[in-house]
């Protein structure tokens, strides 16, 4: 046995260390991959967070051709009233600059024109009519007062951040593993490694270890950004969050391994990866609640791994749920992990 220099011995010279280092080097030396994996979710969260920011209700623009109505509506602080001609008012309504156009006929009745499929239109109708009726002398029979509650955890950004974290874990694991493995197979690198004494499990294990390391940034950065920039809460225990994310990353890595287990070309693998991911982007409630889909498909949606991780993250971050309450989601993820990994080991093509 040769003596080795201190720079290359012990843990560093272990094949699993070397294989994992290869994964990390290949990843960090591809700046685009780092960008898409880590900074893209931040940009997306920032953009959407700003677009859908909460805060005081917006002022709605309305137009009218009647001076009486205009005066009545100006008493309502939620409305920005512009008096104009009938034609200009209808034009503003058509192109969306105003949410409502109000006019008055000879008998004194008011007519509101608005789009009832547009929430702004319906809101403008309520505010405008209330102002008009009050100006005409209506009093409220029940006295009422408001107390405002602006609670972090119930805004769109609070809903969105866990969704983006789950989406990030899925797409990074699937694209990262899929491309890397298919590329190595195409280059006959896996075949070359088979010609060495390298234990095969180390090769697959190095991918999982690499994902674990990237996971710290993948989850930490968007969650940290959400907390600092928008005050998105993390109400559960940090350890529980780690358990959820590690389990999810392993499940999606196994899914990526399965997708990449046979494909010989990047094109073939890409198609397969999209086929698996796109339905989940739509169905699993990343950007809007999955409950909007019909009841009939709900059981299927709940079996999807992306639904499971997003539901678990929302439960943990927003409601402070512990691992016991999240058992159904964790069980779903574990099921995907076991089935995908077993199938991938059976099907994996080394050459």
């Amino acid at each position: 046995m040769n003596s080795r220099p201190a720079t290359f011995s012990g843990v560093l010279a272990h094949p699993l260390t070397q294989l994992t280092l290869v994964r990390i080097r290949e990843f960090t030396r591809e700046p685009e991959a780092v960008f898409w994996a880590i900074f893209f979710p931040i940009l997306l969260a920032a953009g959407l967070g700003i677009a859908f920011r909460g805060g005081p209700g917006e002022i709605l623009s309305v137009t009218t051709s009647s001076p009486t109505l205009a005066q009545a509506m100006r008493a309502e602080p939620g409305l920005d009233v512009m008096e104009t001609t009938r034609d200009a008012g209808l034009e503003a309504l058509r192109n969306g600059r105003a949410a409502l156009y109000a006019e008055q006929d000879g008998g004194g009745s008011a007519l509101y024109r608005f789009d009832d499929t547009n929430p702004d239109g319906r809101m403008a109708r309520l505010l405008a009519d209330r102002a008009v009726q009050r100006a005409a002398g209506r009093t409220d029979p029940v006295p009422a007062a408001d107390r405002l509650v602006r609670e972090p955890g119930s805004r769109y950004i609070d809903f969105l951040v866990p969704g983006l974290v789950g989406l990030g874990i899925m797409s990074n694991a699937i694209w990262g593993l899929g491309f890397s493995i298919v590329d190595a197979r195409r280059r006959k690198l896996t075949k070359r490694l088979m010609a060495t004494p390298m234990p095969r499990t180390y090769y697959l294990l190095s991918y999982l270890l690499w994902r674990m390391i990237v996971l710290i940034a993948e989850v930490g950065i968007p969650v940290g950004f959400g907390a600092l920039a928008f005050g998105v809460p993390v109400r559960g225990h940090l350890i529980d969050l780690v358990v959820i994310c590690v389990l999810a990353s392993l499940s999606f890595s196994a899914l990526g391994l399965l997708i990449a287990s046979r494909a010989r070309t990047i094109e073939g693998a890409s198609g397969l990866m999209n086929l698996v991911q796109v339905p989940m982007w739509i169905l699993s409630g990343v950007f809007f609640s999955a409950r909007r889909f019909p009841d009939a498909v709900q059981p299927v949606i709940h079996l999807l791994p992306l639904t499971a991780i997003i539901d678990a993250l929302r439960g943990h971050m927003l409601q402070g749920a512990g691992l016991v309450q999240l058992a159904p989601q964790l069980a779903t993820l574990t099921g995907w992990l076991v089935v995908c990994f077993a199938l991938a080991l059976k099907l994996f093509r080394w050459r």
Partner: protein
Amino acid sequence: MIGPAAVALRVRDLHKAFKDVVAVDGIELEVRSGECFGLLGPNGAGKTTTIEICEGLTAPDSGDVEVLGLRWGTDTSALRHRLGIQLQETQLSDKLTVLETLQLFRSFYGQGPQAEEVIARVQLDEKRDARVVGLSGGQKQRLALACALVGEPDLLFLDEPTTGLDPQARRQLWELIEEFKRAGRTIVLTTHYMEEAERLSDRIAIMDRGKVIARGTPAELISSIGADHLIEFSVEDGGELLDLEAVRRIEGVRDLRSVNGVVRLQTLELHRVVPALLEELSRQVVRLTELRTHSATLEDVFVSLTGRHLRDE
């Protein structure tokens, strides 16, 4: 006779078919310890399939393979540690450096030189910290060779080590392989370059269509065709006016063939046959358009055995 311990590789009655294409059809090989054994043949002759079966990467349909006295299946793990393998078309990871690549391969083996030492052996010191993507074809091939050497193998398999390289890079790689030969290593190499087989191999098996059609030392093989010299000529009008039988009757001419208007003949007596040939052609009043002679090579052995050139296919 050599004892069993001196045999590094023994292959008996090897058969392998891919779907309905027979790649290897009854190959027998014996490689002695310390020699460089060449498998020479055109593309598609079954060289790579044969060597990959010996490397334990492809399972044979039938036949027996004994490597360093061990067998694939029962002794796979021990064998992997003792073999150095260069595959025909591996592209190593572009984003790693030369040193990182070799440290990776070094980590798989229980013994062997340090990565830096192997880098020096294949003369890549200057490129130690360069990424693989920036290496030339010859440098990449030397890195692949280094990856095969990093476990200090008892037996080295090289599958077409210089295919696609320019002449200078090829010579540089030959010099490295010759150095390993001098160090007493056992090498099995495949090639379709007859110069390469002739220069590097102690013994050669010539393969064609899944079979070994000739074997021996380069000198034995060349002398087996019974001619030291080859003469090739062509005449005007594609040889329509040429009386080939009269040429065949010239004293000293052997194995005359005419392919695509080029007449090719072998002889031991160049000094007598060439003047006689010119005289015969002027008697027939046909004008010579081309005349070439060269010493017999392994290429001529292949042509005389198969009627085809090594690089036709």
